């Protein structure tokens, strides 16, 4: 982690542990946070490699149209019947991975370890493929909010005075708008242009990622501004100013790297809320469209099915458990990071 040029030099001279390494050491002692980190890394890897794994197709329907109870892996591990055609249009990379999978496993696929949903689709495959959308949404929205929020907050905090006041008043005003309603409204309008956007290669999902990011930068801007304000009279900034660095250089080479720990903490707390929001919109029928699958859609399917099919507990249990575990791990990791990076807890 960069901590500004001057501090790096000071570190070199003194050969102490850098704040970043110090924080990492503290984080490693936090058993819950490390468990969460490992869990999330494994899950992300699973999501990334989904086409390579011998999972059934997440959209292959069973003609019985009836949920089947889970078959534990120790009873039946693999079975035959995988067909490559049963997918929505995938990207080139995923198609390649899928071809590789066929080389490796042939038409073998896992038995229904998590059971099947009300339409006979394999629940495990749907959860793994659905997690890809959630991770994508989190990543995209996180990046947009990072870019907009950090820039906005840093400029407001550095400029100070009237500019700062005006910029922060705008953030206050935006805070009081119930954005979710406007976003839903916007998504409906974008829906009308689905055909045109599709021809340009833009899916509704992409628009939606950008919109989420544009909404989620407000808190980030506030945090960064407060930190920059606190730091902008610090000695190393004065030194940079005296040695003739431009405002842009002071801001982005000296101040922003120093507020990064806080930014990372806030990002780990933003990501779960973005995932939640994606699931929320898909749940309402305004996010990802079938036959693609996301966690919100799975939750919607299961909550609709459970009212009719009272005994199919796995329909609710497995999706809830995976959504819950992921978001829980993200929250725990965020808390752990905050504790590890908080300079007041140094010791």
């Amino acid at each position, binding site marked *: 982690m960069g901590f500004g040029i001057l501090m790096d030099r000071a570190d070199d001279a003194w050969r102490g542990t850098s704040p970043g390494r110090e924080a990492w050491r503290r984080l490693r002692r936090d058993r819950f946070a490390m468990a969460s980190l490992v869990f999330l890394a494994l899950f992300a890897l699973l999501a990334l490699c989904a086409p390579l794994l011998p999972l059934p197709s997440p959209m292959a329907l069973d003609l019985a149209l009836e949920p089947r109870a889970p078959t534990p892996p120790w009873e039946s591990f693999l079975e035959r019947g995988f067909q490559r055609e049963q997918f929505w249009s995938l990207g080139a990379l995923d198609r390649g991975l899928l071809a590789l999978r066929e080389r490796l496993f042939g038409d073998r696929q896992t038995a229904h370890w998590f059971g099947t949903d009300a339409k006979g689709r394999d629940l495990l495959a749907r959860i793994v493929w659905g997690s890809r959308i959630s991770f994508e949404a989190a990543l995209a929205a996180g990046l947009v909010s990072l870019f907009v929020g950090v820039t906005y907050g840093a400029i407001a905090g550095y400029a100070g005075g009237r500019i700062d006041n005006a910029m922060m008043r705008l953030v206050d005003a935006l805070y009081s708008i119930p954005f979710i309603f*406007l976003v839903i*409204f916007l998504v409906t*309008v974008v829906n*009308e242009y689905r055909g045109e956007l599709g021809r340009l290669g833009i899916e509704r999902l992409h628009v939606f990622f950008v919109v989420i990011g544009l909404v989620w930068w407000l808190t980030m801007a506030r945090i960064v501004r407060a930190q920059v304000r606190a730091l902008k009279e610090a000695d190393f900034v004065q030194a940079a100013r005296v040695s003739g660095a431009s405002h842009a250089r002071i801001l982005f080479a000296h101040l922003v790297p120093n507020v990064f720990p806080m930014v990372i903490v806030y990002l780990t707390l933003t990501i779960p809320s973005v995932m939640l929001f994606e699931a929320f919109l898909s749940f309402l029928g305004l996010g990802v469209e079938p036959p693609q699958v996301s966690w919100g859609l799975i939750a919607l399917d*299961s909550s609709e099915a459970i009212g009719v099919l009272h005994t199919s507990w796995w329909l*609710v249990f497995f999706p809830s458990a995976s959504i819950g575990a992921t978001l829980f791990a993200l929250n725990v990791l965020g808390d752990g990071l905050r504790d590890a990076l908080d300079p007041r807890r140094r010791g």
Partner: protein
Amino acid sequence: MRRFLLRRLAWFALTLWAVVTVSFVLMRSVRGGPFSAERSLPMEVEASLRARYHLDWPLWKQYLAYLGPLELGPRAPTFLGGDGSDPFGGVLAGDLGPSYKYRDFTVNDVLAQSLPISLALGSVSLFFAVGLGVASGIVSALRRGGFLDFALRLLATLGIALPNFVVASLAILLFAITFPVFPVAGWGSLRHLVLPGLALGAPFAAYVSRLTRTGLVEVLSQDYVRTAVAKGLPPWLVLWRHALPAGCLPVLTYLGPATAGILTGSLVIERIFAIPGTGSHFVNSALNRDYTLCMGVTILYTVLVYALNTLVDLVSTWLDPRLSLEEA
């Protein structure tokens, strides 16, 4: 105080204007207008519908008519060329226009019918959130470091992490199907309110619990609490009279965002439990492209959230003399 309210009002007007304008632009940027989807409509019918909803007017006139407060149609004031029978209209006059889908109703009618339902659900879940949250926060703070504290904090993190529709599904599975204590869905009696209220309030209860715990832990180590204990007050009185009011201030400030979150969350919860509130109307209107209803709900919720935030700011400065309204 007056200056604070005036400034809030000015920002409120600006915010509302921005929301109205943005949603108006969004609505009108839809190709072909709201009736284009109904392909079965004959040309004449569509033309008469367009005339009825004034879609044949130039855009600036539609915008002014929507914004209000003066009516621009045939019932406009006489100096605008109307007969003066109903001179006011538009958002500023509290008139959100006709609904595109429920053709015999205005948006105001739909909201008047559904808002009380949503407010009832919202108050129940707010009650759950504050009641359960503060209670578990107190227990946690008093048993700090103990097993109960650990369990409650774990539960709180879980509550924050789980989406409300997951909580709702689990609650239905547990309390409506496995142990049929409450109805699966529907609306009508108090028992219908329990599960949705609980599912909607759960994440906020978890957050309130955290805030209460942190606040209380800090307050309990203060000198004045030690003095109160030292002069022999019974522990519950110390807690009730001295520690809680100060320890719960963060909870109070959180009530503004919590209410906004509960309003939003009710979109999903109302859908799961088939409750005919404003939230389900909003989602249906978005899916049916009933733009005026969509805009109406957005505007209504903007007003609600703004008013609540202002109220919370006022109350918390009244309770905590260290805060000043000038900075709020």
